[in-house]
């Protein structure tokens, strides 16, 4: 299934949901948005996980300066240009303005303001401690109130618990898929598709997992293993192709689309014993220590995670693994730490490529050269 077909299917899926009377809530901020709550309240969560291009970025310059995160620029561009395959964006009823980063705030606010999508506010503390957990509860309570007002009825506790379980199981299957020894591009496509369609894709994912689990992919033996950290590879991005064309294979996606999402699993015993589903959402926020939003332990946690994966991978597969730190241009979170991340990992003998780029076509050749050189060095 190619990307155009998938987007067309997704558009049909959303139209069908609209016919059922569901309303669509979109958001840029991928981390910490309680999609279970949106689901329980009867909304369809729509993650903006679409990569950009020159036209999309240019279109955003009417609203924000070009020195804005290329992904945020592209999100605005999607609403400004509305390319044919993205016409489904017209179906969006609400937009969550959140503070994953300041570009998220600005882009979300612009989309809501200039493209007439009603906004819902949801903000997260920048630290993770006892008080920020309490603050998270306040925001969740506030969000519940907003959603209930929109829908005109209250969110049932049992329904919310059911949604939490559903998403929990969904993430578990994604985790299993990620552990498969298959080509990174196949894995990424499954992850991207899953994060668009959500748990409705559960049975298809299980089927995929069963089929892919029995495939022994001999061609991977000669490829060079890569851990991709930093910014996600979004839908329609050519980066994964460049890596594979150069002889690399991403075995682990340490990004929004990937580990950061499916690692946010809540313990089943906790779910079954919980009286208050808000507690569960708060626990999920508390356990989300690898997200890039919070300070001050982001760098340390990420280094620990990468080191652990590196050691486990070497022990299990017997091959070294290189790290590509993918930095979308003007990304505050990934860029500022990139030098420190690289220096610290290199001290541990882990090879790192800081790959900064935007979505312009002109970059492709340069990116390919840098990836080639890095893989050769490995």
């Amino acid at each position, binding site marked *: 299934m190619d990307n155009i077909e998938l987007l067309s299917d997704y558009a049909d899926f959303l139209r069908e949901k609209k016919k059922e009377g569901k309303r669509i809530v979109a958001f840029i901020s991928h981390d910490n948005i309680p999609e279970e709550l949106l689901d329980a309240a009867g909304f369809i969560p729509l993650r903006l996980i679409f990569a950009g291009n020159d036209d999309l970025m240019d279109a955003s310059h*009417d*609203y*924000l*300066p070009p*020195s*804005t*995160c290329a992904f945020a620029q592209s999100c605005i561009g999607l609403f400004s240009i509305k390319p044919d395959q993205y016409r489904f964006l017209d179906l969006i009823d609400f937009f969550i*303005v959140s*503070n*994953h*980063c*300041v*570009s998220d*705030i*600005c882009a979300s*606010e*612009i989309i809501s*303001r200039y493209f007439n999508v009603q906004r819902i*506010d949801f*903000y*997260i*503390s*920048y*630290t993770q*401690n006892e*008080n*920020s957990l*309490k*603050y998270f509860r*306040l*925001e969740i*309570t*506030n969000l519940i109130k907003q959603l209930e007002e929109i829908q005109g009825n209250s969110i049932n506790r049992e329904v919310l618990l059911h949604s939490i379980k559903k998403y929990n199981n969904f993430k578990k299957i994604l985790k299993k898929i990620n552990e498969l020894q298959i080509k990174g591009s196949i894995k990424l496509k499954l992850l991207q598709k899953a994060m668009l369609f959500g748990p409705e894709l559960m049975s298809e994912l299980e089927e995929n997992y069963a089929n892919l689990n029995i495939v022994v992919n001999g061609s991977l033996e000669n490829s060079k293993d890569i851990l991709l950290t930093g910014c996600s590879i979004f839908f329609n991005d050519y980066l994964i192709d460049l890596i594979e064309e150069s002889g690399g294979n991403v075995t682990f996606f340490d990004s929004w689309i990937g580990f950061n999402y499916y690692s946010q699993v809540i313990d089943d015993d906790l779910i079954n014993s919980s009286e208050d589903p808000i507690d569960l959402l708060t626990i999920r926020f508390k356990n989300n220590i690898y997200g890039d*939003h919070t*300070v*001050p332990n*982001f*760098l340390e946690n990420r280094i620990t995670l990468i080191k652990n994966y590196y050691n486990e991978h070497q022990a299990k597969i017997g091959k070294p693994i290189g790290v590509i730190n993918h930095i979308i*241009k*003007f990304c*505050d*979170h990934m*860029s*500022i*730490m*990139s*030098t*420190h991340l690289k220096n610290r990992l290199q001290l541990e003998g882990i090879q790192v490529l800081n790959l*900064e780029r935007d979505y312009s076509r002109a970059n492709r050749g340069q990116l390919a050269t840098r990836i080639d050189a890095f893989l050769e060095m490995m």
Partner: protein
Amino acid sequence: MSLVADELIRFSSVLRIAYNFLTGRDYLKKKKFREKKKLISVALPFSDLVYAFPDLIPVFPIRMHEFKIHKYLTYLGSASNIFGWNRVSNFLGFVKDLGIKDISQTVDNIIEDVIETINEKYNEMFDLGIESGLSSDFCYGIKSLYGMHVSKGKNCDANLNYTIRCSAWNKYLESIDAIGNPSKQIWIDIPPRNIGNALELFVDNISKALNELGKISNYDYNSNELRNHFRTANHIRQVYKKIIYEISTANFYPCNPATFSEILALLNISFHDYNSNANRFEKNISSLLMEMNGRIRNKIGMDVLKMPKILITPMFGGWEPKTHDIIYELGGRVLYGDWDLLLFLEDIPISNRTDPIEAYAQYLMNINSNGIGCDNNILTDSYLRLAKNLKVDGLVFVQVFGCHSISNCYTILKEKIRRELEIPSIALNFNKMGENIEQIKTRLGAFMEMFN
């Protein structure tokens, strides 16, 4: 001939503030090594809590650097210790009036040096930030601050870190630790919005930070000490506001408008940490207001009635300092009021709060909710509010390269200005001081023609 030198020497308080800023290194060394006090790094006007402990000194890190100080300013500093600043200032004025060329030129150089040396140091820190591995895509402020920590951060015992809506700022604060300096990181999370009992949580966050500061200090936290500081800090704010609202909006200035802009810029920089001594800063800023009022009463200064008032903002994260000279040459006068715009010049409400921590939490929450705001809608309202309050004739918006938070909202702002203020506005791109001055001149030339 400097635009400002003739005027600045008439204000001994300005010389004092400048001198205290530039000689920060010696002052801080004395405090640290002789008096065994500890330095706490702060940036943005977040220094107040440090004053709760008598042996802790807040410092905006650029002030730990050695500045190229004109030798005569050094002599003046020494002379002032004996004769007092007022006498020294009067003497300079006398020398200037005599018109002795060499000495007169020296006096000009002193003042020019003050402004230029600060800006040169900022640019030096900017370059150092990039050389140290920071991506050149970050804004001027972050790059300069990073450079300051690379070069001098090791002298601080702790960094007092407040989270705000700017993600580059928050991550920069985290990165200070990665630089490898031994200073302790003390974090204060400002809740993004004032909902539910968020204020209560914030009070607790501040209390915990005070507890951490207390571990560095040899003193226990004393609420009276903090309350006394807040009284001083409030007086500084009230005087600062009078300078912005009463003097800068008047039709007669105590000096030429370029000088006035220089003074506002100097106050803006010094307000970060009150030049490490709030009581001293309070005296100096109070004298400044008195000197200004005295000159206006005696009709010493300049009639500015016909000069359009141009608000340049935001400038605290980096701006081209030549802008106010250019606008003056084009017949306008420039006002700077960033701290008021972001509500940092509001009083810390100690009179109606028994606990100073609660008062400070309320003060910062107001800044976060209504000044900086959690989105650009609130932030642009702040720009509008200041422009309205100052009744400015035009607005120059500084669009800082790489800034994703404070200076990227011109589209929304322009729309609001057009709808609500109906005054001309222009956005100027800024990357580094001294770059593109000719382009700025051309653009401002066209902009200022609208007022003819």
